């Protein structure tokens, strides 16, 4: 298999973060995590172009998910972004406006997220498989 796909997962709930980490790790991804938008931005700016996909929560302290997405889309336009929200429509709508590739509403099935991520990162492969 080629290099594993690299994910950055951001959520201010550490339990969710741990669950995501375990899951994606077991699915063969290389995973880094961050507890809020600011921490994530620092990781991204240190290792620009390292990641294939960003999975982020929206409502977080300091830099919100919406803020993170806006900054990332400007600085690293090639990075795919999955936004997740559990706070009704407002943040989700703002995330779409900030051009997240996809917005998912919690609770979300982990396998569904994995499917989405894999389609985003390797659209061609999926077409062949299907």
């Amino acid at each position, binding site marked *: 298999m080629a290099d594993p796909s690299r994910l950055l997962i951001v959520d201010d709930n550490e339990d969710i973060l741990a669950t995501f980490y375990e899951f994606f790790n077991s699915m063969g991804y290389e995973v880094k995590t961050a507890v809020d938008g*600011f921490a994530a931005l620092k990781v991204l700016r240190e290792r620009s172009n390292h990641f294939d996909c960003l999975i982020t929560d929206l409502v977080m302290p300091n830099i919100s998910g919406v803020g993170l997405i*806006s900054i990332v889309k400007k600085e690293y336009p090639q990075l795919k972004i999955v936004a997740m929200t559990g706070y009704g429509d407002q943040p989700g709508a703002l995330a779409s406006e900030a051009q997240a590739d996809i917005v998912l509403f919690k609770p979300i099935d982990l396998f569904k997220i994995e499917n989405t991520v894999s389609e985003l990162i390797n659209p061609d492969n999926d077409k062949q498989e299907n």
Partner: protein
Amino acid sequence: MSTPLIGVSKSILKIKELINHVADTCLNVLITGETGVGKEVVAQSLYTESNRSTKNFVKINCAALPETLLESELYGYEKGAFTGAHKKRMGKFKTADHGVLFLDEIGDMPMALQSKMLHVLQSGEFSPLGSDHDFKTDVWVIAATNHDLEESMHNKTFREDLFYRLNIIKINIPPLRERKEDIAPLIEYYFKLYKSEYPANHGTKPDSNIFAKLCDYPWPGNVRQLQNCIKKQMVLNSWTKVYDELPHEYLEDSPDIQTDEQPSETQPFSNHELANNPASMISQFVDLSTSSDKLFEDISLKKIKKMASDRIEKEVISFVLEKVGWNRSKAAKILKISYKTMLYKMTEFDIHPPVK
């Protein structure tokens, strides 16, 4: 010159780092924290470090103006838009174009204006009162509040959609009592600053005993109170006196203010003294030295009632403000009036913090 953000605590260092990372993004910022913690200082720092620093930094206080006035201040108006609009006037949105618009006390913005604000933030367009045209605007909006906006949303006094649109980047400044390590550098900074303003003062920095006491003090009015306290020292030239004059009932209490507390032992008017001498009491409101004809012309119970109640209100408001270190929202809570009423009364009775 704007005040720099001073502090060595973890939270202040993190805020400085955050400012450094986001100053160029021009994403909406919401700054929260108690009165006097330095919300405007943070807004100024964001502006100074951004690529908009050569343009305007325009500030507007959303709690200080009545709704209609706030609206025309923000968006401007055309000549003849309303009675008294003799000529066209530019609004803050226009003045702040390509620069920063700092919306202070955003939590006090009336609902109707919140929806208009939301529209401007969404579309980037606004139209002055009485105008048929929409104008494109490019302002960086930084808002600040000492309210808990999440709670205001639950109480339906703040729009949820506006909250999320402003809350793209959130900077919360903790109260001074939660970052005591900042007290020393703050004293250092303001001592130097005021020393240059009061060169005649030969005062020294606080000795270790007073210093320890100052660090232990809970500072309900936060940095602004500390700043005023140092300024006072320049005049009084005695740290002991300055420390003793700080309101001290909080020292034993938890940081939270007891809102049901009645200022019983120190009533501004001493009742029996007035009751013992009715003439002296009346003379405070009516000029008794004039002839009786003129006197009876002047006396109106309604007028006197208003004067007397104004006076006692002024005394009580000043008294409570003094006790809470000029923290207006806390004083409003104690007096069970709205924050807006508090600001209004302060203007009406001409009440100001001792040194500003």
